């Protein structure tokens, strides 16, 4: 069915590595809480475009790597990423035909779900955090989604015409 060649996976892996670098890059304290969840955005995009290759399993591995580099509870981000990727793959055909505005609303819902799971796990594990750490990334993530989507579509188009 799908051609799982290395040349096809490579662009996705590169974007994920860049995403991880953006995630651990230092930012001034004032805007740090508004850093978008780059890896969540990337997983939503790739699960929407290539749901056979980039599905819940990949999301889980990305989440574990994120947990280790953050030092959060092992499995916390893995769980959250896994859940939103599941929803994305489940509705990927619908999301592909959505106009951009409607797609942004869907992304908002997915990011909110992502942060809610993180919040919920933090609550159970008794980790206290300011509330801006949760809603900040959702807002910025939704606002940059249209640009992110256009940019990533370009990346995908180029990488496909390359091989």
């Amino acid at each position, binding site marked *: 069915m799908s051609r799982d060649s290395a040349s096809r996976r490579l662009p996705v892996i590169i974007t994920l590595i860049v995403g991880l670098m953006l995630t651990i*890059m*230092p930012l001034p304290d004032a805007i*740090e809480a508004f850093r978008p969840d780059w890896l969540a955005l990337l997983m939503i995009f790739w699960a929407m475009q290539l749901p056979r290759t980039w599905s819940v399993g990949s999301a889980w591995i990305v989440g574990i790597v994120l947990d280790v580099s*953050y*030092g959060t509870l092992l*499995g916390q981000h*893995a769980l959250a990423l896994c859940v939103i990727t599941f929803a994305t793959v489940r509705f990927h055909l619908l999301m592909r035909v959505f106009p951009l505005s409607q797609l942004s609303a869907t992304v908002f819902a997915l990011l909110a779900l992502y942060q809610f799971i993180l919040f919920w796990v933090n609550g159970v594990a008794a980790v206290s955090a300011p509330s801006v750490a949760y809603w900040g990334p959702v807002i910025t993530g939704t606002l940059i989604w249209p640009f992110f989507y256009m940019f990533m579509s370009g990346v995908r188009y180029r990488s496909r015409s390359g091989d």
Partner: protein
Amino acid sequence: MATSRGHNTNPARIPALGLRALVLILVSIVLMYLDHRQNHLDGIRKGIGAAVYPLQVVVDAPVRFWGWLGDSTTSRNQLELELGRLQAERLLTNARLQRLTALEAENARLRALLDARESVRDEVRVAEIMAVDANPYEHNLVIDVGSRDGVYDGQAIVDADGVVGQVIRTGVMTAQAVLISDADHALPVEVNRNGLRTIAVGTGEIDRLDLPFLPNNADIRAGDLLVTSGLGGAFPAGYPVAVVDSVTRIPSEPFADVTATPSAALGQVREVMLIWSAPPVTEAENATESATETEEPDE
């Protein structure tokens, strides 16, 4: 939607998606439980952490390069000025050190007279902070030394002005440390002026600590220096922690409202020192120390 669900021939159907997701979710929950309850997963953490290390180095590189560029383009004039300043500073420090040697000898003699255990000089090592952001839920930093260099969980970190924090997660080549200003951090301190013991709790604000367990009649005032008391075992005694900046006594409340400003520049440090405190404490001493730590200050 292209076609309806339920047909295996449907090209849009991803095989066993729900099942895979369910299994992974359960695995995540088990992992989180194990990680929260015990430390069985340190090996996995260290393995993946070592794999992420190159990325941290790459992220850190531009900042390091910028610093190097700044260093190598300083003018000769500036360097000479800096050199003069440093030489003067060194002279002063050396003069103070001379007295310190004599004082240390005297201290050892007195301790021997009192039969107290000798306080051995702490071993230190300079570590650089990597320009890498970690956990969004706590005040922390990543340093460029790890278990390879003998760093261990719970190790104290100071800078030139005072206590910075302690190591909480040791990787192979890096370690994560929590700052004393983190809302979940508390450390045993004493007032340098009179030895009044209490606990300094982080507030989540980088420039403020709270001292919530001081009664209204406690002898403490603005300007008092707080130093580590050495109780609790994580921090060696005698390092400056913070300076009290306000004491508000509310007669109707059992405890005074005391806030302090950390001595270390928590938001700006670039280099820190790790402390290996030498004296191994015996079991009995340990027990009494941890018992007194939880007590109210006895003034």
